[in-house]
């Protein structure tokens, strides 16, 4: 490595500075990750301000101009009821981004909590939790999710909860591993010796050490959750029409593929850009937070 020497000097400089600053400096060097972060911010802004930014109301139908190809007035064209596709894709961002975010949040809370319990208490608790992780990992998750969502009723809340509750095994494994390796370290013993209760020791002294892998996992997890949600909606087991969501628009696009391929093109591009942005951000965060991390 040619960069070896100047990296060493940079490293000594860093010793004086806080961890966050160090991470930021390493992250800033990762240009693609910065692009990813910027795209994510833009997408969230677009989702939040969709009512102000969208050129037309998303559910205004215009049957006379159905399936019209993209034009200046309608850059993404019109759908099977003559609704403006650009506006619908913008509104669709609200669904996918919130489901991705909330589902990943649920997985994170459940996974970190159970992983910490398993690692800290060991024994039977550990066995029960980790065998559950094994079970979850050996079921074809996608089919399981559709089956459960179809059974409990396809709507936004159920989709978020079911995706969240089936994808926490990665967090549990990472947290458990960190807790196990730290449980017997001096600083944890010291915290316990001065009277810190289990909860305090876990929350204040152990969990902060899992932060790096958990943040990376969560970023990639949002991307995964968005892919699952759009697949569910595409198959008709997710968000129900007439609500605009990327998956449901794609589903209509499939029926009009022959005459109006633009209907399937744009929501798919939106999904790809969003998922790509989260993957880039996740990669950059992994390199910045902990270059040795393997996820």
């Amino acid at each position, binding site marked *: *490595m040619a960069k070896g020497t100047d990296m060493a000097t940079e490293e000594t400089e860093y010793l004086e500075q806080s961890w966050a600053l160090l991470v930021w400096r390493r992250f800033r060097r990762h240009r693609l990750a910065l692009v990813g972060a910027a795209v994510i911010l833009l997408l969230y802004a677009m989702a939040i301000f969709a009512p102000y930014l969208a050129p037309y109301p998303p559910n205004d139908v215009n049957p006379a101009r159905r399936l019209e190809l993209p034009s200046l007035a309608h850059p993404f064209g019109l759908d099977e009821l003559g609704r403006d596709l650009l506006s619908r894709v913008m509104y669709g961002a609200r669904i996918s981004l919130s489901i991705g975010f909330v589902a990943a949040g649920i997985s994170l809370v459940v996974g970190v909590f159970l992983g910490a319990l398993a690692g800290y208490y060991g024994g039977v608790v550990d066995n029960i939790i980790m*065998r*559950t992780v*094994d*079970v979850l990992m*050996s*079921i*074809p998750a*996608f*089919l*399981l999710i*559709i*089956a*459960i969502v*179809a*059974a*409990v*009723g396809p709507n936004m809340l159920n989709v978020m909860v079911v995706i969240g509750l089936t994808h926490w095994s990665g967090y549990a494994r990472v947290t458990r591993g960190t807790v196990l390796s730290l449980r017997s370290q001096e600083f944890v013993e010291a915290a316990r010796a001065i009277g810190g209760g289990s909860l305090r020791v876990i929350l204040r002294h152990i969990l902060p050490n899992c932060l790096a892998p958990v943040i990376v996992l969560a970023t990639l997890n949002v*991307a995964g959750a968005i*892919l699952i949600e*759009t*697949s569910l909606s*595409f*198959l*008709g*087991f997710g968000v129900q029409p007439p609500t605009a969501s990327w998956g449901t628009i*794609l589903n209509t*696009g*499939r029926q009009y*593929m*022959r005459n109006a*391929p633009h209907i*399937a*093109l744009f929501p*798919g591009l939106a*999904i*790809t850009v969003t*998922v*790509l942005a989260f*993957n*880039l951000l996740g990669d950059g965060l992994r390199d910045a937070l902990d270059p040795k991390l393997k996820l």
Partner: protein
Amino acid sequence: MTMGQYVARRAFLSVFLLLGVSVLVFSIMHMAPGDPVMMVAGLEAPPEVVEAIRKEWGFDQPIHVQYFRWLRRAVVLDFGISLTTRERVSFMILSRVPNTLKLNLAAYALALCIAIPVGVYSALRQYSLFDHVGTVAALLGVSMPGFWLGLMLMIVFALKLHILPVFGMGTWKHYVLPAFTLGAAQAAGLMRMTRSSVLEALHQDYVRTARAKGLAERVVIYKHVLKNAAIPIVTMMGFRFAYILSGSFIVEHIFAWPGIGRLAINSLYSRDYFVVQAVVLMTATMIVIANLTVDIIYCFLDPRIRYD
């Protein structure tokens, strides 16, 4: 622990794993509000059919009795009769397994043929144009929803250019689009993994030593770098193989491929829950068995693993 003990312990754990899976699969039926019998039979079913199903599956019994009755039959692959086609569920599934296997094997082979050479070459020429293009392509591949890629390929190659069939199964041409759609995502993941493993191996001390003692670059690459980089790659290939029956649900649905994925999704549409349960249980069983096999092969190849 001896090798035999390790294998016995892993096999024992797998049985428990399968019991756990079966509880989860069984409980899907009971998650919905309302009467599970109505869910199985459908809301328009005549009362005598509803009563017959209630009797046959013991829906009037306590839940643990129902579970064990269901499990006893599931073990011998008796999943009952499909309520839409009146066929035996196990027959419906087993007759479609070969089609799913063929499609996934084609995709898997395609993924290996693309991912490994491209990944290795990218790593050896790090930061070259080839590497950048490959890295971007791989990132796109993992970020693109498979079903969307499938639709786009279908529009271009089948509907516009008319060089490939739109859907179905028959000639080799029918394989091209679905196998590529499935293989692209797998290739992308495998390529990223291959690239990083080779890069890691390139920076090891033994590679520097090999170069320092004057070995030809070709020998260093083949004997020292690639051999060591192969370990994580082969592991990933093994675990990917476990999902060979359960990775193609949506692609089969889009391309009307007569496999178990399409069967599962169609059964969900017609609320044929016996079929859905059976597909989940059978594919999960395949995953558990495949993982167990990989683990056992591994413990013969690399004795260190047993001490984990």
